């Protein structure tokens, strides 16, 4: 009697366990940067992804999902450890979330080698976009260089004939200046690489003043950009020399932190909070209700990444083991992006439209980033031609 009870209980438990396995939601690994000065970028990526899941009732594309979030601390080694743990212990196949190119450069190969899938909501270094493109690697944001190429195009259209360039001395900084120069037709009067941890730019600003350029192009993401813009204003340069930047140098948070110093800034972007399409309006309303702070473009990209993953999961019925089937469904890009037009290019990076934005003062004195005009339609990147998939 007693034995049968135990056996019965065991069987019941086992049946329960298998049932639980069948219903268990698909796990998605979100590795991002949540600590340090760059932490607010990862915070927006995490929050936007969770928002998309919440808006679809805990599902993406009709498939129940659970999102596991871990902080890489902007350390490539830490990112690798997390990916390893998620691959081996949690048996996760589908990853997203990385903010910084140096972390993605270390983590993405590990994921792909283990037959996993990575969908990038932000970083897209040139290493994985040209010859090194990969079948199970998708980018929903942009290719790194495209950010700065379009800024160069914007500078051309604004009629600037000479420029002074400033960026931090690391890979993304060098890519930024190379990207800008690829498109900009005017003369380069000077180029300065600053230290990545530099927060005082007085020596560089003195050189800008002495060079008398028509415009300044700078790439100083996050907290660096805040310090740079404010010192630019304090030196009285903002009224003398206009500035053209790509979107990493001015997001909603930077704008709030620098205030008046950003007035008149020319920004190029593939998305802005004022975009007039149904998907964006739905996103903006849900975001504002949930978090009550302005979303950065990192948030928009992560939201789009969630939608793209949802569309792919819908196509495969929630299966991620057959990566070929997943790829087929993913590349259709069957979702409404908050940025408007979106499709994947041959290297599985976006082909999209780019816009010129400007920081302006509203009637009530608040500063806002307003979309002015379209710069380029259906622009991919300059590496796609080298990709053979």
């Amino acid at each position, binding site marked *: 009697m007693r034995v049968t009870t135990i056996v019965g209980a065991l069987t019941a438990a086992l049946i329960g366990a298998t049932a639980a396995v069948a219903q268990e939601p698909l796990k998605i690994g979100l590795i991002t940067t949540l600590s340090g000065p760059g932490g607010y970028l990862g915070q927006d990526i995490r929050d936007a992804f969770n928002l998309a899941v919440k808006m679809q009732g805990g599902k993406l594309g009709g498939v129940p999902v659970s999102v596991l979030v871990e902080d890489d601390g902007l350390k490539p080694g830490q990112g690798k450890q997390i990916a390893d743990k998620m691959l081996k212990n949690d048996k996760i196949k589908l990853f997203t979330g990385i903010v910084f190119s140096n972390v993605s450069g270390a983590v993405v190969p590990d994921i792909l080698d283990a037959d996993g899938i990575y969908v990038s909501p932000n970083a897209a270094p040139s290493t994985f976009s040209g010859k090194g493109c990969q079948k199970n690697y998708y980018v929903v944001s942009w290719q790194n260089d495209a950010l700065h190429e379009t800024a160069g195009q914007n500078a051309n259209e604004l009629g600037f004939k000479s420029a002074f360039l400033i960026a931090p001395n690391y890979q993304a900084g060098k890519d930024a200046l190379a990207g800008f120069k690829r498109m900009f037709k005017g003369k380069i009067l000077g180029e300065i690489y600053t230290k990545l941890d530099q927060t005082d730019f007085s*020596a560089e600003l003195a050189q800008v003043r002495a060079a008398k350029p028509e415009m300044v192009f700078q790439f100083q993401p996050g907290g660096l950009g805040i310090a740079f813009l404010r010192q630019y204003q304090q030196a009285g340069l903002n009224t003398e020399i206009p500035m053209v930047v790509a979107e990493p140098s001015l997001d909603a948070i930077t704008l709030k932190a620098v205030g008046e110093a950003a007035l008149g800034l020319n920004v190029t972007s593939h998305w802005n909070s004022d975009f007039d399409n149904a998907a964006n309006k739905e996103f903006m309303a849900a975001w504002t209700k949930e978090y009550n702070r302005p979303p950065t473009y990192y948030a928009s990209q992560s939201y789009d990444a969630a939608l793209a993953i949802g569309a792919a999961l819908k196509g495969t019925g929630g299966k991620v083991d057959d990566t070929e089937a997943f790829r087929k469904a993913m590349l259709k890009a069957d979702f409404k992006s908050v940025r408007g037009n979106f499709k994947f290019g041959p290297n599985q990076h976006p082909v999209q439209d780019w816009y010129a934005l400007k920081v302006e003062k509203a009637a009530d004195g608040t500063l806002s980033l307003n979309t002015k005009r379209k710069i380029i339609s259906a622009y991919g990147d300059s590496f796609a031609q080298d990709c053979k998939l």
Partner: protein
Amino acid sequence: MLVLEQILNGIQFGIALFLMSAGLTLIFGIMGVINLTHGSLYMVGAYAAALVAAKTGSALLALVAGLAGAAVAGIVIEALVIRRLYARDHLDQVLATFALILIINQTATMLFGRQPLFVAMPPALSHSVTLLPGLVYPVYRLVVIAVGLVVALGLALPINRTRIGMLVRAGATSREMVRALGVDIRLLYTIIFGLGALLAGLAGAMAAPILAVQVGMGEQILILAFVVVVIGGVGSIRGAFYGALLAGLIDTMLRAFLPGLLRQVMAGSNADALGGGLSSMGVYLLMAIVLLVRPKGLFVRQS
């Protein structure tokens, strides 16, 4: 004109370094404590100033809050943690104060979030003035230089002329002897730690309108401040002052002019890369040379 402007930039950077390293050199020299939390006190000063500036809009109140915040934080840290470390070796001190950095940074993240805070520049100081034809300089940075010089003088007088100052100097030279003579060393330590915290808070509060007020801002300046302490000589305020100015000037000058000089002998991008690398090494090279020539620092009597 460019050279003059860069000299001013160098002095201004040096002043900020001096305010940090003055406290550090006293704490290290007299108390024998390696205090890594000094950067956190700088951050506390900046945050306190930022919060009060946002609430009241008054730059003066913000400055007072920055000073008070850092001093209070300093005294609390001294009483709760540092006081237990005097007799321990340097490794324990590094470990404990490093832990404090992590705790303070995480607390700041929980309280104020990861987004950098905005601090408005006082309107009266937010413009630039023409000092000489062609030399335009932000007023605020001139004020920072002036405040730094006043503080340096204000420190020099009591240290050279008062009884407490005498104890401080004596403590820097021979800690054991001062203790043996029956001076209340515990009170002296608390005063010194509070003073160091006050100066770090002043540096933080003054940096707030220029730099981004964010978690981790203190660690960036802390390393350079330690370099200055080594250059000037441990325990010497005078050494900290000249060492800081020297480091500030060398760092700024190399940054400003080295790439240009190198560009005359090599291709542009190589010159920029090499110039950038060398100029970020400059201060550390200076430290290495000083250590070779005068191992105890420039302003300490060599034995």
